[in-house]
């Protein structure tokens, strides 16, 4: 049993596995960017045909980032990182706590960076010169005396040893945050017309109903446009009610959400809910103007038993812009209909109803506001993890551990050896080592 556990542990502690898993995640993640995710079934059927659809659907390729096998890859990756860190961290703590202050004389020959320097003065003098010089140009060395001779030890960039583990732990924290979010959070939406209120929202994935612990009321919704017709800003005036109590109120904007009790309401979208009223100028045969505002289907008396009413509206009728369909009634019976275009008042200008002319000025369009309602108790973990990730990357990349030993043998009174090694950045270390050697040569008699 122990043997099996040991094997499993060793399997998960390998860098090879990490590379295989990362490449698998990369390879499969690409699929989901080529096949559009989360479209309605009919669209896939039309695009791929029934049999291809069945095959792709079997492998969950239409929602692959939430499929069991992709999630399994992510879980294996996290287990891999965790085991790697647990496996290596204790040794690193030990190494940092008990640095190798001395190395066997015969091992010095194996170093790539090493130099033997001659001196003529006496040994104690040399030692203090070296100590002062190193303190000045690099770092205060640690002194150790052995049977074979004296050692000076220098170390820099110790923190870099922890960088990879800080990075790995940050990924574990992000993963935990994501899990908390997916188990205890939700992602939902609701559309509201000004004046409406609701406590019910529907989840974005799965379209399930969720009852909020409060009611959202949309007091007002406003959208502004640029001249090109592109939306400039859209804002919802929202109130949060607990029963009859208003407990929060805010005008939300696309980048300005409202948070209450851990649930955040975002301005996600908007859409047309039709037009609420229409400004129309009615001109009679004596050229007398009458500015009127009509609701849809509201009858307006012209004369005798003639009435008009706006029956329909399009914000852009066949590319001609805002247009209304006006019905003419005789004794409350619909007689005829005609179109009035806001941008082209002359289009129907010649047509008149019993000597009356109608001009369509503007429509007060009513919109619904599209709200995204989300709760993500895992977010603080994800955010913390992200910050730690950056710290970890900086620790690992922009610092590296390097160690230098100076060995002054008892046997030979006139030479000493300086040797060094870097965990990474061998080239930068080569330059640094060269600089230290030159400084020492200059300082030693």
């Amino acid at each position, binding site marked *: 049993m122990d043997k099996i556990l040991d094997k499993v542990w060793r399997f998960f502690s390998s*860098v090879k596995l*990490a*590379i295989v898993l*990362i*490449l698998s*995640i*990369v390879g499969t*993640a*690409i699929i*989901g*960017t*080529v096949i*559009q*995710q989360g479209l309605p079934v009919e669209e896939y059927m039309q695009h791929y045909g029934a049999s291809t659809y069945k095959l792709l659907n079997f492998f969950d390729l239409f929602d692959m*980032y939430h499929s069991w096998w992709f999630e399994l890859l992510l879980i294996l990756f996290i287990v891999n990182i965790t085991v790697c860190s647990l496996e290596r961290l204790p040794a690193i703590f030990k190494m940092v706590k008990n640095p190798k202050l001395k190395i066997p004389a015969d091992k010095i020959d194996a170093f790539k960076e090493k130099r033997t320097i001659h001196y003529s003065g006496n040994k104690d003098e040399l030692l203090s010169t070296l100590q002062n010089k190193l303190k000045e140009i690099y770092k205060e060395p640690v002194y150790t005396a052995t049977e074979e001779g004296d050692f000076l030890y220098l170390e820099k960039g110790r923190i870099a040893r922890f960088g*990879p583990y800080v990075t790995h732990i940050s990924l574990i924290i992000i993963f935990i945050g*994501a899990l908390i979010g997916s188990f205890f959070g939700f*992602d939902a939406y609701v559309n509201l017309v000004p004046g409406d209120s609701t406590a019910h929202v529907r989840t974005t994935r799965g379209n399930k109903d969720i009852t909020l612990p409060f009611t959202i009321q949309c007091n007002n919704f406003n959208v502004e446009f*640029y001249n*090109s017709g*592109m*939306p*400039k*800003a*859209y804002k919802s005036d929202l109130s949060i009610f607990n029963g009859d109590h208003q407990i929060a109120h805010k005008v939300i*904007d*696309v*980048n300005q*959400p409202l948070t209450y009790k851990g649930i*955040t309401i*975002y*301005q*996600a979208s908007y859409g047309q809910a039709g037009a609420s009223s229409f400004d129309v100028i009615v001109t009679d045969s004596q050229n007398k103007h009458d500015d009127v505002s009509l609701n849809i289907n509201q009858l307006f008396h012209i004369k005798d038993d003639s009435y008009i009413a706006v029956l329909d509206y399009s914000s852009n009728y066949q590319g001609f812009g805002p247009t209304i369909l006006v019905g003419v009634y005789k004794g409350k019976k619909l007689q005829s209909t005609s179109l009035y275009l806001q941008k082209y008042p002359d289009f129907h200008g010649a047509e008149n109803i019993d000597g009356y002319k109608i001009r369509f000025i503007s429509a007060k369009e009513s919109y619904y506001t599209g709200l*995204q*309602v*989300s709760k*993500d108790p895992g*977010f603080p973990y*994800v*955010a913390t993890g*992200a910050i730690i*990730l*950056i710290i970890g*990357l*900086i620790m690992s*990349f*922009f610092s590296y551990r390097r160690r230098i030993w100076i060995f002054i043998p008892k046997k030979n009174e006139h030479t000493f050896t300086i040797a060094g090694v870097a965990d*990474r*950045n061998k*080239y*930068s270390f080569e330059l640094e080592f060269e600089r230290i050697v030159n400084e020492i040569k200059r300082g030693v008699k």
Partner: protein
Amino acid sequence: MIPMNHQTNTLLLSVSTFVYVGAMFLYLFGLVFKKKLLDIAGFVVFMAAFLIESAGLIARWIESYRLEYGHIPITNLYESLIFLSWTVALTYIIVELKYKMRKLGFPVSLTAFIFMAYASFSPNVNSRIEPLVPALKSNWLTFHVVTSFFGYAFFALAFGASIFYLIGDWYTKHTNGKVLSYLPSTKILDDMSYKLIIIGEVLLAIGIITGAAWADYAWGRYWSWDPKETWSLITFLVYVVYIHLRYSWGWHGRAAATFAILGFAFVLFTYLGVNLVLSGLHSYGKA
């Protein structure tokens, strides 16, 4: 002083495109004729092109305020191409001042020129200053785009250094140990390519995180597997593999250089491919 009108920025940017061409030829002659003076002239002209381009970007920024849109010029394909060439140029200038590596000037000025020319002359790229849709009106925009693009720029330079590595390495191999005198040593190129990649990786990580933070702030979802998000993560992971191969398995030299060159294909696809080929939130490519 240049009169400020609506065309000043595009004019300055077009001029800088041609000045980059000048720098490119000087660098090319420097490579062919091995004259140091040509390299220095190349660098001077390159700096001039960079300054004109910077002036163009600033003029465009000011112009957007005059139009009352008021946004940093990094919000459509035209501006992003120009901004990318600007970040590549600035990154090169920093590397040049640190490493004295003028030879990299040729591929860099060529790259800057290609991006500028694509922006200026392609009929598919609209150079008008446009107002922002509400979702883009956020301070995250600047931070997210600037970090991501400098990440791309560092990867681009690593790509260039890696190609030079392979050229130098190939030359040495086929001439029984001679070195190409006009390139830095392969040891320096290998180290440089690695250092550029780790800086690029940190910047890309910050770019992804600021993008996620922004998405959370605007839409309540920090990650939604949008193609751009997914591809930037894929690119990040590709370089994670590079770093682990280097740290744990000691990959360097030819293998690492080849990997860095292939890795850059992922950067390019994340920047342009996603917008031009795939669909999603970052859809400026549909212009």
